[in-house]
């Protein structure tokens, strides 16, 4: 049981990529964005109901920006249900002061097929871009965010609707959260309440879905293949699958270890009689 002074903050990031939701509306009439937001609101309200000191924030993310859906400027204490309406605005929410209390927080994520949305303490989102030249930088920013969350004891959980994301699997594994791909999308509210609502102390008592197998193999910088044994440049830490005399990232020339030359021993000529 959490003590009276602990504030538990739940931040839900909903991915509102219009392309995917539009395609989804055509594919399956029953599960639309409004139903998804209903499920999210149910979860948010239950979290607030669990304890008087629990706090909530909801953020919608799409390609260019992220908006705080809740809390908004007109937020009053105790007026939870009605304020979940989408009103983007700048709320006065000092997440940093809460984070400094060193309390385990939970961050949830609802994913879509083409974009990822990830939230960290500073409430900004980040996307994986398909363009190859941006991939490295996005991966690095993503990993920076994950390590910052791990240092602050923040759990990242991911609830995936459509396709698996290796990055989110890594994020959940490193920070200690849960990754779940939902088999039936209409039952989103059930999954949210069952799997993601309990906090970290209570999760050890429950029987939850088993952890997914995370692929931690590195991808080589030259071909983007996943490799098991590779060569790492000692200067810039880039990974290559084959030995090459020059690192392509930092352009340092490497010393090649030449095999030792063994002087041939002079053989004594046999005296033939």
């Amino acid at each position, binding site marked *: 049981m959490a003590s009276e002074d602990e504030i538990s903050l739940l931040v839900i990031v909903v991915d509102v990529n219009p392309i995917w939701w539009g395609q989804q509306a055509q594919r399956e009439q029953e599960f639309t964005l409004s139903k998804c937001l209903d499920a999210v609101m149910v979860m948010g309200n239950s979290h607030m109901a669990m304890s008087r000191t629990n706090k909530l924030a909801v953020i919608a993310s799409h*390609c*260019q*920006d*992220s908006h*705080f859906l809740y809390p908004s400027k007109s937020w009053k204490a105790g007026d939870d249900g009605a304020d979940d309406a989408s009103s983007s605005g*700048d*709320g*006065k*929410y*000092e*997440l*940093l002061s809460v984070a400094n209390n060193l309390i385990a927080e939970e961050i949830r994520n609802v994913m879509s097929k083409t974009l990822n949305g990830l939230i*960290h*303490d*500073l*409430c*900004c*989102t980040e996307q994986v*871009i*398909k*363009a190859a030249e*941006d991939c490295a*930088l*996005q*991966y*690095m*920013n993503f*990993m*920076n*965010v994950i*390590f*910052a969350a791990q*240092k*602050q004891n923040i759990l990242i959980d991911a609830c995936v609707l459509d396709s698996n994301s290796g990055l989110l699997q*890594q994020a959940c594994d490193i920070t200690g959260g849960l990754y779940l791909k939902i088999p039936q999308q209409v039952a989103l509210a059930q999954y949210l309440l069952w799997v993601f609502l309990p906090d970290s102390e209570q999760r050890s008592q429950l029987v939850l879905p*088993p952890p997914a*197998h*995370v692929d*931690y*193999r*590195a*991808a080589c910088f030259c071909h983007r293949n996943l*490799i*098991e*044994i*590779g*060569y*790492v*440049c*000692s*200067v*810039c*830490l880039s*990974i290559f699958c084959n030995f*090459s005399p020059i*690192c392509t990232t930092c352009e*340092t*020339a*490497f*010393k090649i270890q030449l095999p030792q030359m063994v002087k041939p021993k002079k053989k004594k000529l046999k005296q033939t009689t």
Partner: protein
Amino acid sequence: MDEEPERAKRWEGGYERTWEVLKEDESGSLKATVEEILYQSKRKRVIESHGQVRLGMMRHLFVVIDCSRSMEDQDLKPNRLTSTLKLMEAFIDGYFDQNPISQVGIITTKNKRAEKLTDLAGNPKKHIAMLKKAVDTVCVGEPSLYNSLKLAIQTLKHMPGHTSREILIILSSLTTCDPANIYEMTKTLKSLNVRVSIIGLSAEVRVCTVLTRETGGSYHVILDESHFKELLMLHVKPPPTSSSSECSLIRMGFPQHTIGSLADQDAKPAFSMSHLDSSSGPSLGGYFCPQCHSNYTELPVECKVCGLTLVSAPHLARSFHHLFPLDAFIESPVEEHQRNGFCQACQGELKDKSIFTCPSCRSVFCVECDLFIHDSLHCCPSCIHSQTAS
């Protein structure tokens, strides 16, 4: 006589009127000055990045802890040894956080001898366990700088050339008992490219000054416990490499993590090679070396059978922020910006004296967010938004 740059000693400078720093305002309160001092101390934590300097990512560091009689002094609470060991635990945590593929070893020195507490290893748990046990050691005798340095370089000289070799000495005694000339040892250290840094707990000692200056390290003497912690944490960041270290391609393995379960038909139990001497039985899961298939429970580790270094991709990713550091944000007084602005990151009101602007995306942040971005996050939140596909 050797020519060395002698710093002016404190008694040689003019008088400092330190009381003039504190200024009272009209009502006689010191609140504004105190806030200013706190603000300056917060800003001091954001150290300027080195820029385009090559950093030593793979570090082999030996920490030498003085366990001589002077460590029982109680000027650090409860005594110097306990306080040092506690700070060392925090140091080891921070060290492996910032340098995941590096290794650390601990040496203690007392009674004119030196002995190894832990060997060079990349796993923090063993070091922290031994540090906790070392609280009970009896502090007796005098330390020996020469013997501890000799013990350290016995291992360090076999390390490959592309790694950085460092020794950090925590010395509290003002004397040292050496069997041979320590200036010869200094020459040996220089030829082996070992960098020695010293943190003194009592006062400045000349032999330490010469040792650190010749090998390119740093020497500081602590003022109090918080200063001690600050000085220790300065050594967590990777130092710039010396020009004579080599760069090479290191062969590493990236093992897969298998989670075995009893219901799985193919699961084969295996003993973990890193815990052969402990009494725990075989485990089903773990990391299997891609070259020789020996089992390990944790990474990073060096495979005992085939010698391959095993790491996982996030370990390397942890060091990336040293290679691509974030630029410092531009500080400007808050009056230039409109009064009712909000910090871009935490959506809080800007009520500090100054605001910080990211040079590339021009978004505005408050002091706390700026500190957080530069200390932990290492990427600007708004710049990430602007990196969209065209």
